[in-house]
């Protein structure tokens, strides 16, 4: 081939070939209509931090020292990106606590205050807002979700006659199909029953979203748009710390609040008292009273996912 002496004709042909192949590559680049000069982003974290973040291990595999480092690294990263001092905690599950939630459908009026409380608390991407709670406006007398309308108008007076309202969020199943589906164990059930995601381990394949019967998992299709003034600086590694592009997220029962004995943001935001949250292992808790004395039911119970989220009516 080229290693041999070439005649001028051969040389010309070889040159033409290289030129032609180069032209094909160039034409392909043009046809991709990708910006040839991508806007250079200001590096939001030091090279060293990015390097260590890349090789960061799975949350459950890190030693306590490595976790401390990872938390500090995240805080530096958020400081550089948003210029806000974000606290990233990793409060462990409380002893003898398994969380459960019950929602009174006869009290829910469809105000969607829980949705607002959730997005204020959990640092989701804004405009359009990523929401963990979806409230369906249902026909009275029907539990067919297909007839529910999640897009009923913001300005319309609720409750409307002949309708009832069904808020749906992550049900924190005892037998979570999403955890089974994840190929890299980036999502798991904590001892207190909360199903969490390690946003630094998720590869973004969306297997979990396909497995979830409650449509509770939301994906970051683009770099999250989180205005500085909307940031909640009190965060948890497995909870509401600001997320990245290309990873899955979901309701964590406000892990950053509930592990400190507070109520989830949606429970506090609800003006009608339709939401009851508490420790399922505490026989004197309100949630236990509801489960024992009310006519409770669970969504899609036939799938055996064993949700820890119940609905009831008075």
């Amino acid at each position, binding site marked *: *081939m080229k290693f041999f002496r070439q005649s001028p004709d051969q040389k010309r042909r070889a040159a033409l*070939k290289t030129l*032609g*192949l180069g*032209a*094909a*590559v160039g*034409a*392909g*680049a043009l*046809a*991709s*209509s*990708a*910006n040839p000069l*991508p806007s250079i982003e200001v590096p939001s974290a030091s090279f060293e931090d990015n390097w260590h973040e890349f090789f960061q291990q*799975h949350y459950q*595999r890190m030693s306590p020292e490595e976790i401390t480092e990872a938390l500090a690294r995240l805080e530096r990263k958020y400081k550089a990106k948003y210029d806000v001092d974000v606290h990233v905690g990793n409060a462990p599950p409380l002893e003898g606590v398994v969380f459960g939630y019950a929602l009174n459908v006869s009290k829910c009026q469809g105000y969607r205050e829980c949705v607002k409380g959730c997005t204020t608390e959990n640092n989701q991407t804004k405009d359009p807002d990523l929401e963990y709670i*979806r409230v*369906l406006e249902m026909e009275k007398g029907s539990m*067919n*979700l*297909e007839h*529910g309308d999640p897009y009923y108008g913001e300005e319309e007076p609720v409750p409307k006659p002949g309708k009832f309202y069904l808020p*749906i969020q992550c049900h924190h199943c005892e037998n979570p*199909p999403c955890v*089974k*589906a*994840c*190929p*890299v*164990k*980036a999502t798991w059930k904590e001892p207190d029953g909360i199903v969490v995601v390690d946003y630094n*381990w*998720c*590869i*973004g*394949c*969306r*297997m979990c*979203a*396909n*497995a979830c*019967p*409650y*449509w509770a*998992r*939301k*994906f*970051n*299709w*683009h*770099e999250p748009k989180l205005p500085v003034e909307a940031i909640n600086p009190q965060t948890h590694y497995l909870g509401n710390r600001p997320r*990245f*592009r*290309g*990873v*899955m997220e979901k309701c964590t029962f406000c892990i950053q609040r509930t592990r400190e004995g507070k109520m989830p943001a949606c429970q506090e935001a609800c003006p009608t008292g339709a939401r009851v949250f508490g420790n399922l292992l505490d026989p004197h808790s309100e949630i236990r009273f509801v489960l024992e004395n009310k006519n409770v039911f669970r969504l*899609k119970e036939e*799938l055996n996912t064993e949700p820890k989220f119940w609905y009831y009516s008075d």
Partner: protein
Amino acid sequence: MDLIRFVVDCLKTALSGGRAYWIWIGTLLFFISMGVFTYANQTANGLMVTGMSDQVSWGFYVSNFTFLVGVAAAAVMLVIPAYIFHNAEAKRVVLLGEGLAVAASLMCMLFVAVDLGRPDRIWHLSPYPGMFNWPSSLLTWDVLVLNGYLALNLLIPGYILYHTYHGREYNKNLVFAAAVLSMFWAISIHTVTAFLFASNSARPFWSSALVAPRFLATAFCAGPAFIIMTFLIMHRINAYKIGHKVIDMLAVIVAIAMQINLIMLAAELFVEFYAEGQHSANARYLFLGMGGKHSLVPWIWSAQALNVGAVLILMVEKFRKNYYLLFVACAMAVVGIWIEKGMGFVIPGFIPTPLGEVFEYKPTLMEVKISLGVLAIGAMVFTLMVKPLRAIQMGILSNPALDQRAALELAEAREKAEMLARIASYEDNPEG
């Protein structure tokens, strides 16, 4: 040293060719470059550049992946007659089939890779240093079986060619064992991919026991049809001469597999629509449309028309043996199944969502460009493999240090010894 020389010789052969060859390579390079640059854009902006959404979280990429798994699995339809039944004509082309399987499994992996939100973390998807949720997650099964299948289809032909190149006999028992293994493996890649969908009880459209058998039927229909088309083209452009018997055998396989597929389709339609419940909503959206939304309806019906048309042509022996008609029928089957098992299977699984929302999906131009890039990479890999393969099989390319005459004499002596041994065995027990 021998191995290096073998690889270098193969590369040299792959990179030599006439003007038409280089125009083909240039065309592929154009599509690859377009795909790579578009993919760079996708990684910079996130998957928002695709048409996918929380409602429809898998789209064109996974659809193509699902289809190509079938193409990859189909190589087994040449492996069985060649290595198990020692069919001479199948043996001549089996390496091509395996080359196609290599290209198809590679494309499958690329389609999964471009679908990831965080491709930089793909190393997490490994037993070490990542974290492998095996055996629970079906995607880990797919990673295992696809990589295994790729390895098998690289190693068997590689081993055979390496020995042919050196003028040596290969170990027939070893190849037989590997062929049996790859036979089961081909079934497994398709079953696992079907279970990837069928394991989601949240998605009634996918969660059916019929998905895996139907995947196999469509695979053994679209796959051999695709192989027939490739063979007919290669035969036509003198890239590789293919025997008639192989084509005829594959055509019968396509015809039978398509009939089985259509029977299963009918069974599915009956169950979905005779007593139509809430779980039939996805099928209703796919075949009839729902809530004024019906973008898949014309596609799925044209797919079924193509499938029925193909089977009508293939059922008649006279038509099947006319290679123009056969080509048309195979093209119809490939396109029909590409629609039916790609977008026609993956997308309606998401519509309506588990919460009953009907939200449609349409691939964006960028998704199509990236997919074209992946397909071009597959075609490039196949092209580069075919050249040295053909040269070695024809005896054009061999180890220059090889004494051709001595090798020939050795082979003849061995053949003679084998024949004598067989005759001797007859004489020992005349009844047998």
